[in-house]
């Protein structure tokens, strides 16, 4: 069949569908999902809760059988050739652990190495290599339950890289990590992709994960792909908005700048939506600090749900028939959705 080596395709899924539950009360988690990923690509696979991200990853890694559709990962049908595929891919799930809490990571590696058929010499070499790459050598000898979440995730990453996988599937890898640990993990993924050519397929809720790790973003909702494009374009079109939250120590005048929309303003809080394409964050901060008595200030990305909502707005504006597709499970936004208000204004 299609040789993955020749066409350079790591993942190809066509018309995947998965239904859970008994006939009467079944839920369609994934419906008619078509997606493909080239070798060496870094793809973010995102969507709101219940969009079918995890279900599709589980189908692509051979954990679940789809109800319909076909898929090949590295040329293998995941649910039929699960074991052969498992030997060539790595999976990291923020919610689950490959490592045994009462053992040291190194002890778990020994077990995994035996499972993947690595000889003990090769195992030692690889563990040393990964320890260096992840800056985690000194973490490998403590019982895993004594590690911080960030440290544990680095060990988890080492565990799923042990057999030098060709594709890395990561489900919410940064969940619960502090900022530094998140940044470190993101850098590692990019580095790994650059040096080893590992294909990275990642799901996340965190807009920053997508911006910093992925080159391409696939957005799904209600089991279907609703957007597929380069992150650079998404950044230009949809991630240009930042939110500036200002804690006020006293009364403040309204900020009136081009590209800045006041989302909320009362005695203690001022929230601004800033279109960074037309005004720099620095200019906004300067103005705010100049005119207001500030007790606290922060700059954040808009939540993913809002970004996705805008994908809908954009696509339904371009193609009216998409709006009906969207109505099968549109993202529900609060009435006071700041970004939407900002964009429409």
């Amino acid at each position, binding site marked *: 069949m299609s040789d993955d080596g020749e066409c350079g395709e790591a993942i190809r899924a066509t018309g995947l569908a998965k239904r859970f539950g008994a006939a009467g009360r079944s839920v369609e988690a994934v419906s008619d999902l078509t997606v493909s990923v080239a070798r060496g690509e870094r793809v973010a696979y995102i969507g709101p809760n219940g969009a079918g991200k*995890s279900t599709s990853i*589980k189908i692509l890694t051979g954990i679940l059988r789809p109800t319909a559709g076909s898929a090949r990962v590295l040329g293998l049908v995941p649910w039929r050739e699960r*074991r*052969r595929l498992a030997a060539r891919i790595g*999976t990291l799930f923020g*919610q689950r652990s490959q490592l045994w809490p009462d053992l040291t990571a190194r002890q778990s590696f020994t077990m995994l190495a035996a499972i993947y058929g690595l000889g003990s010499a090769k195992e030692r070499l690889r563990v040393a290599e990964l320890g260096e790459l992840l800056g985690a050598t000194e973490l490998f000898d403590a019982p895993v339950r004594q590690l911080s979440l960030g440290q544990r995730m680095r060990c988890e990453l080492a565990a799923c890289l042990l057999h030098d996988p060709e594709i890395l599937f990561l489900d919410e890898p940064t*969940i619960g990590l502090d900022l530094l640990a998140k940044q470190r993990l993101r850098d590692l993924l990019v580095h790994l992709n650059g040096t080893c050519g590992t294909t990275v397929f990642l799901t996340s809720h965190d807009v920053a994960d997508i911006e910093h790790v992925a080159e391409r973003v696939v957005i799904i909702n209600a089991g279907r792909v609703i957007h597929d494009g380069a992150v650079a374009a998404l950044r230009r079109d949809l991630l240009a908005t930042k939110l500036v939250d200002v804690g006020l120590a006293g009364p403040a005048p309204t900020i009136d700048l081009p590209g800045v929309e006041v989302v909320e303003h009362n005695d203690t809080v001022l929230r601004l939506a800033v279109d960074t394409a037309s005004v720099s964050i620095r200019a906004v901060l300067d103005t705010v600090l100049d005119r207001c008595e500030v007790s606290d200030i922060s700059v954040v990305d808009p939540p993913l749900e809002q970004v996705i909502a805008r994908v809908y707005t954009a696509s339904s504006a371009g193609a009216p028939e998409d709006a009906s597709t969207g109505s099968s499970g549109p993202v529900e936004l609060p009435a006071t959705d700041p970004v939407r208000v900002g964009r429409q204004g």
Partner: protein
Amino acid sequence: MRGTVAVLRAAMRDATARRAAFWWQISVMVANDLIWVLFWMIFFTRVPSVRGWDSEKVLLLFAVLTTGSGLALGILANCRRIPVLVREGALDEVLTLPVSPLRHLLVSRVDTVNLGDTVFGVVLFLAVGRPTPLRAAVFVAGVLLSTALLASFLVLIGCAVFVTGDGESSGLGTHAILVLSSYPADIFQGATKMLLYTVVPAGFVASVPARLIDRPDLTDAAALVLITGIFAALAWTAFTLGLHRYASGSGWRRS
């Protein structure tokens, strides 16, 4: 095979990582078993024998049961946890590894509390089983078959979760086989006894191996091997087919 051994070694290390808890659990189980020995000893002060089972034979049965069930529930601890593993979506991790999922699951958890039973059973056999090389060999073979049969039965009934979505029926089955195996199958008669040699093969878990140690018999031995093989095949098939219906539970909750 090397993988399986490595997993078992890791599971063993994991279970013994907390020394104090480990020895405490072992002692509790040994004390528990001692109470049962006490029960049988008191029982046989009033009753010389029950349908051919005297105190020595019953203690032999108890030695086989504690050793075998200790191995099944201790070393192959996940054999009775299939329902909870399936419901929680805990098969996910196993399914991302290039291994046979059932084999990996079975060896990847050791419950030390049940290892106390195994230790006790072996000591009991050495103490009251009049060990000779032949009797010891039959004891070892009988215990291994008993372990395999018990584990297979528990996996088989656990696989009901793939259809029913809950672990209730398998919970009942687990109770049933463990209680029924603890007594000589001959105390039952008629249909109940028939049941213990077929559907709920409690008779083969301890009574038959114990009888074999005392009086090696080809028919008994063949029946034990056959029924173990049948239940192992059924368990394997049920699990493999069940996996097709695996829905990964509520694992990876934040989808």
